[in-house]
């Protein structure tokens, strides 16, 4: 087992990893930017190194300074968390070159899955259903030709994309050239990679993803699915659940089986997630995330497995501590993302000082957060302040528990998504279960109309 792990991240996930390390008896090294000097993740770690100024390119993405901090503090492994360098194959390679274990899959697998078009081709070859579409298209004209062949509406996607960036839905041929240009420009600005591909746009599909885990000795298991269909118009997830409500048991079994098959096919190791779009009785592979996900707690709460500890154990060469037959979900879990955002203004991010911070507690509630009363929310980073997770025996009891928990939550100083999420939880269509990814944008449109 590792003696000391560098946590190459910030915010709640840095604390999450710190906790897993300490429970395993591993010392931790935090990294931070000038803007995060007072952050909780710095205080919880055994050691901490400032790696740069506020902007991420010079701090949390500063590979030489991060690797150097790991080396001079005597670390033997690096946990990348999610975002930042988590899916950067080069970072994983550089870490290995310096004798540091990267807690995640092999760099070649990260690279293959990180390139969306390549990932789709590999999955298609492995017998995983994929959406009809193209490989890389060289121009808007070429994209148009593909769109006319598979039929509108289509989705233009950046192969390096993520978090909804570099992605545009297009309903008609007339809209395509402008949408292509803007999505490509966004991809170039965000990922320095403007390569685009086209795929059939499914109308209001559900976003259902399967958690998988694999050791370095051939052991593979899935930990069920999560429903992440409540997404903002930017395609960013807001509320996630495990298990997926109102899902045909047959379809569920097929999803799990395909996910395990795909995990073996790509030689995957460590924790990963296969994202699928589900439309009717069909499902299509969307992408594979080669890291721990933001919403992993809902899976942990119903399976009783600590995914971050498993990641660390697997990276240290240990076999999985369980087989598929040992894994049985109990109850239902739901997660609400508390973001420093204004839901009444397109979820525009807010920065400032948190004057009041009161989080909920009591039975069945878990809060993963890095903020506290008086904490400053810097303008440079993701707007996630906290994840509130509720678990109950049934979906209904988990939702009631979440409503109770959100009622206890008080965050003042910046606008947050807390009250907005209460509105969503109270909605009859959401309660019924089985909504698609188009539901929240439509809900927002209706809501704006009522307000005005």
């Amino acid at each position, binding site marked *: 087992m590792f*003696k*000391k792990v560098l946590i190459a991240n910030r915010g709640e996930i840095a604390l999450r990893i710190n906790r897993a390390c300490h429970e395993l008896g591993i*010392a931790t090294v935090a990294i931070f930017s*000038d803007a995060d*000097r007072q952050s909780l993740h710095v205080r919880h*770690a*055994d*050691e*901490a*190194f*400032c*790696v*740069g*100024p506020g902007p991420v390119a010079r*701090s949390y993405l500063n590979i*030489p*300074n*991060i*690797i*150097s*901090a790991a*080396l*001079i*503090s*005597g670390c033997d492994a690096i946990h990348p968390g999610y975002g930042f360098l988590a899916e950067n194959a080069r970072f994983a390679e550089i870490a290995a070159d*310096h004798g540091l274990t990267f807690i995640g899959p092999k760099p070649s697998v990260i690279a293959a899955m990180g390139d969306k078009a390549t990932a789709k081709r590999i999955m298609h070859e492995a017998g995983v259903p994929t959406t009809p579409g193209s490989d890389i298209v060289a121009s808007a004209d070429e994209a148009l030709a593909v769109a006319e062949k598979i039929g509108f509406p289509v989705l233009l996607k950046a192969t390096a994309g993520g978090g909804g960036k570099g992605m545009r839905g297009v309903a008609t041929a007339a809209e395509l050239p402008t949408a292509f240009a803007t999505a490509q420009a966004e991809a170039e600005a965000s990922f320095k990679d403007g390569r685009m591909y086209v795929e059939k746009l499914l109308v209001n599909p559900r976003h259902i993803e399967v958690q998988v885990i694999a050791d370095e000795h051939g052991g593979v298991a899935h930990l069920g699915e999560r429903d992440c269909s409540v997404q903002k118009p930017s395609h960013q997830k807001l509320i996630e659940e495990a298990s997926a409500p109102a899902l045909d048991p047959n379809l569920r079994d097929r999803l799990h089986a395909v996910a395990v098959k795909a995990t073996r096919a790509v030689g995957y190791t460590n924790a990963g997630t296969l994202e699928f779009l589900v439309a009717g009785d069909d499902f299509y592979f969307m992408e594979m995330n080669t890291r721990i996900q933001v919403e992993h707690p809902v899976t942990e709460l119903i399976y009783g497995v600590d995914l971050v500890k498993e990641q660390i154990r697997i990276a240290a060469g240990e076999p999985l501590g369980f087989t598929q037959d040992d894994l049985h979900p109990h109850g239902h879990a739901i997660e609400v993302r508390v973001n420093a955002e204004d839901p009444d203004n397109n979820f525009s991010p807010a920065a400032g000082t948190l004057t009041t911070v009161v989080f909920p507690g009591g039975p069945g509630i878990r809060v993963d957060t890095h903020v506290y009363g008086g904490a400053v929310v810097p303008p440079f980073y993701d707007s996630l302040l906290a994840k509130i997770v509720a678990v109950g025996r049934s979906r209904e009891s988990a939702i009631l528990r979440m409503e109770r928990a959100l009622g206890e939550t008080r965050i003042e100083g910046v606008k947050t998504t807390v009250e907005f999420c209460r509105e969503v939880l109270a909605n009859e269509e959401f309660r019924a279960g089985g909504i698609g990814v188009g539901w929240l944008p439509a809900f927002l449109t209706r809501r704006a109309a009522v307000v005005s």
Partner: protein
Amino acid sequence: MSPGGEKAARRTRNRMTDDVIATRARALAGALAESGFARLRVRDGETEIELRRAPRTSPAAVAIALLSADPDRAAERPPDRAEVVSSDVVGIVRLMRPAIAEGQELEGDREVAYVETLGIRNPVRSRGAGRVSAVFVTDGQPVEYGQPLFTIER
């Protein structure tokens, strides 16, 4: 947690005050460089930071003086143009021979140290003549980004 971990953790905490001052001073230096002012003084509790624009130098080379809020001690240490030289990278600091020492007069711009990051030498220069008024590091010490290395009075 290993004993080494405890020691290093304490080191991080002990350094915090100086670090906070250095960070604020850097932020203020940016504000001063953008403004047309020649001098900027900010007071926060026990700490007072004064920055002056160095004569005939680029805006980046704004001089920094750290003063105590205590008037007696402030009188002891006149607000000379004392520039804090900090590390731009994370690595191991190596002092050039002969090692820089307090009270030493530097005659011009020279490489006084370097910070080694993944085998790469990042030179630390004196950026002109002056008297070394403080040395905060020893040879072979790990340093983080923004960590003060020494102070030079111009």
